[in-house]
């Protein structure tokens, strides 16, 4: 298989996986808030918080770099060519807007309900990352669709 074929196959896989990752990420956050963490000092809470943070960082890195970190430079370059970079920029724009809208929403909610800074950060990061992942996945699928 040539580098071009490999890049095409991995790009298709990435376009399929990103929306699923976004859904998994959001579901994981839902379970986080159901089993609410009070002070974060229990080991189980620390594991939960660490898992969320690690997953968030990994998803951000995958989104920012395109993933496939262990493939050759040529394959990675093909997977991150002009169209992908344009799609990524658009995904980050949508992620930023979603985060800002979420922040405005939380500001109003905070007038009626008390919640901690950690919860706010958690919600905003989830909104931003999930929105960007979904948008990137949608744009990549659209780009791969034949004429």
């Amino acid at each position: 298989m040539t580098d071009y074929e490999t890049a095409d196959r991995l790009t298709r896989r990435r376009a399929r996986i990103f929306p699923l990752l976004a859904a998994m990420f959001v579901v994981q956050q839902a379970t986080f808030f159901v089993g609410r963490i009070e002070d974060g000092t229990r080991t189980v809470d620390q594991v939960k918080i660490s898992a969320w943070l690690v997953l968030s960082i990994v998803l951000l890195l995958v989104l920012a770099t395109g993933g496939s970190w262990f493939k050759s430079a040529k394959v990675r370059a093909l997977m991150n060519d002009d169209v992908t970079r344009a799609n990524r920029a658009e995904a980050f724009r949508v992620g930023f807007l979603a985060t800002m809208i979420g922040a405005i929403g939380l500001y109003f909610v905070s007038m009626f309900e008390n919640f901690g800074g950690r919860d706010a950060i958690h919600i905003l990061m989830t909104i931003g990352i999930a929105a960007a992942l979904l948008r990137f996945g949608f744009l990549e699928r659209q780009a791969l669709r034949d004429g």
Partner: protein
Amino acid sequence: MAERLGNRLHQLRAERGLTQAALAERVEVSRKTINTVENGIFVPSTILSLKIARTLELPVEEIFSLEG
């Protein structure tokens, strides 16, 4: 007035008997890039337009034109 970039890439590629993948390999981009340019989803950069023109051995204005 909203202008858009038209192109004859699909026709020119077909005339040469090239698949999207084959043209992509010659231009050294992904098939996805050729697909999006052909379908008008992506407006290529000047560099990419010139690379496509060089590969097809045509002036860039014979491939791309302003519409609207």
